[in-house]
């Protein structure tokens, strides 16, 4: 099929209007994002401890970055965060798409279930973390109560370093799967019905409908949702802070809790800025990768 490249010529006035409408956003972004980012970048090359005026801020070049990659707790937090993001987002995506498929019918039950599914998403992470912390308690928690009713020993969900991170992953999956469900559901519902009807006339099975129509047509949305969730998962703070504070030991320490510790508890402005800069660069690269992937997918669909 021949592709048409349509180029639209804009008048100077149109271009001027475009800039006028864009300027407020550009100014706000510049003030709220670029200036702090540049300031953070500058600080990351300095030694600066906020509560020690006796040692004024001074330039130390790349030393903060060198320290960063030798810091065993930073590397541990990076490992934990990567595991957390990969496992939780993967499972959330699979479950989210499954639930979206199940709820895609336009009947009363589906609409009712969609409302129910939303509940975990609307609870604040701090509140959800606190509730789960209580429910997961080994002695008084409701989950272990049921486990013991079934004849098993209670599990120390948050006290055992080999389990704690998976417990937090579980809570994250519980909370954010609905987010993926709702967005994927909306993209499924946007697919023209005629496509399904034609496919059914041709004798397509349910699996064929899913793999040949729904999944490809929803993939641009799925990719964007996956990217947003992945970035969000790297920014996880509240749930971990409330449930384990990074423990037992450092078993659930994540990058944001580590940055918080270095910057807000130790007042090491330079070092925490260096971690934040690395964090921003990593997230930007991931976003770039996802965007490329999404663009390729869109081209394929076109």
């Amino acid at each position, binding site marked *: 099929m021949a592709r048409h490249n349509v180029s639209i010529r804009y008048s100077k006035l149109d271009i001027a209007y475009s800039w006028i409408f864009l300027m407020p956003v550009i100014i706000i972004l510049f003030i709220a994002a670029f200036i702090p980012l540049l300031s953070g970048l500058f600080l990351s090359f300095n030694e600066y*401890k906020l*509560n*020690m005026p006796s040692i004024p801020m001074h330039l130390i070049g790349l030393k903060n970055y060198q320290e960063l990659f030798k810091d065993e707790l930073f590397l541990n937090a990076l490992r934990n965060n990567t595991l957390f993001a990969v496992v939780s987002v993967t499972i959330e995506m699979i479950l989210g798409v499954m639930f979206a498929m199940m709820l895609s019918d336009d009947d009363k039950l589906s609409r009712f279930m969609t409302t129910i599914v939303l509940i975990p998403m609307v609870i604040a992470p701090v509140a959800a973390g606190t509730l789960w912390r209580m429910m997961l308690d*080994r002695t008084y928690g409701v989950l272990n109560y049921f486990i013991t009713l079934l004849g098993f020993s209670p599990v*120390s969900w948050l006290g055992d*370093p080999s389990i*704690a991170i998976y417990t937090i992953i579980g809570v994250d999956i519980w909370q954010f799967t609905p987010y993926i469900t709702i967005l994927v559901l909306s993209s499924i519902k946007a697919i023209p019905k005629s496509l399904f009807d034609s496919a059914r006339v041709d004798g397509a099975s349910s699996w064929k409908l899913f793999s040949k129509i729904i999944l490809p047509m929803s993939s641009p949305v799925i990719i964007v949702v996956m990217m947003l969730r992945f970035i969000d998962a790297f920014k996880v703070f509240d749930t971990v802070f409330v449930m384990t504070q990074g423990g*037992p*030991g450092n078993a659930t320490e994540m990058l944001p809790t580590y940055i918080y510790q270095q910057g807000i508890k130790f007042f090491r402005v330079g070092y925490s800025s260096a971690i934040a800069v690395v964090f921003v660069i990593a997230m930007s690269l991931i976003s770039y990768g996802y965007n490329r992937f999404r663009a390729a997918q869109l081209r394929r669909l076109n």
Partner: protein
Amino acid sequence: MKRSKVLGLVLLVCVVFTATVFAAGQAEQPKKITALYFSSTYADAAKSYVDEFKEKTGITVEIVEYPYISLYERMGLALATGDTSYDLVTVACQWDGEFEPFLEDLSDYIERDNWDEADIMQKLWQQSGIWNNRIIGIPFANTPQLISYRTDLVGTPPKTWDEFFGVCDELYDPNKGFYPIAVPGVKEQLSGLWMSVHWSLDGRWADEDWNVTIDAEETREALRITKRWFDYADPAAPAWGLPEADAAFLNGKAAFCFAWPTLGVAVQGDNPERSKVVDKWAVAGFPAEKTGVTNLSSWDIGIPKASKNKDAAWEWIKFYTSKEKQLTNFTDFSILPSRTSVWENPVIKQSKMYPHKAISDKGAVIWWRIPAGTMAETYVRDAVANYVTGQWDIERAVKYMEKNFKELLAKYPPAEGVKNTGR
């Protein structure tokens, strides 16, 4: 022209009138100060005195409170950035060295008002409120770390750790859900508990001149003892904070509770609605081993340099730390006094909390009160928690503390002339 002149005159009158009313309002506005408190019994006590203080002085006090975990950052950022929001701050003694550059020296106020400073426990004051010969705060809550124990199960509190674990062996009965030790295993609590053991064994982090001495047998022994606690504790204890440890003890599921007694057991232990151990508990020091020195929690109250209401703030300090209020603090809020004369009051002498006095007299200390004190304590937290939960071996934990202490002291050295008065 004429109309514009009239209009101008009217406008002028309006401006003058508004300015006069505003100025009068400002002059008549009652004095108001804002105090930043740790949101526990300390803030509760302060709030209960606000009306009385206003009646006496005409000064309104707003109590702003934060939990321990976020208080430090609130206070730190406010002080370091010269924020004028707070006229008073309650400082945990371990933060003295960190916040000292931003706090007013109270010596002049004390001298001016001939304030009865001799009544403040001097040893305590050196650990809480005085830093590098400057008086930056007045201590008002003096709590050495003790343990609560069941008098019906334990009898006399053990004097050594061998005795202690012997009692635990006898009482350990997991089938009945009874674990002898209720320990808050979250990092920030566990490190303080470890310090109490370490110091009681005569362990030190550094000598008087800040030469690091942490790589020692006392450190290893203290780590081993701390890890052994968990053999007799609920398996979930590594994730427990103070409330969970208190709950286990108050529910009669433990014989010893390592949570701060003043924050939980003392408040609820004899309340039949909340406790199953009414009249069956007491407090005692940790097994004393060599020194009997334990960890200190003390709070002092000071005035930020940036405050614009320093005189009014000082009035509140005098009021809140007075003998009368310290006694009420104790009777109504379980806050232990910082004044010698208040400890001598029969109400306190006959209370279950009185053993705190003897332990305090032995010289409870806090960790390094230097600008990088929180960093040092965090290294201890990580080492202790990772060792106790089996993620690090003992050598890794000890070397981790040693390496980081040395680096920290090299990078952020204590001010010249400041000696290590703690451990």
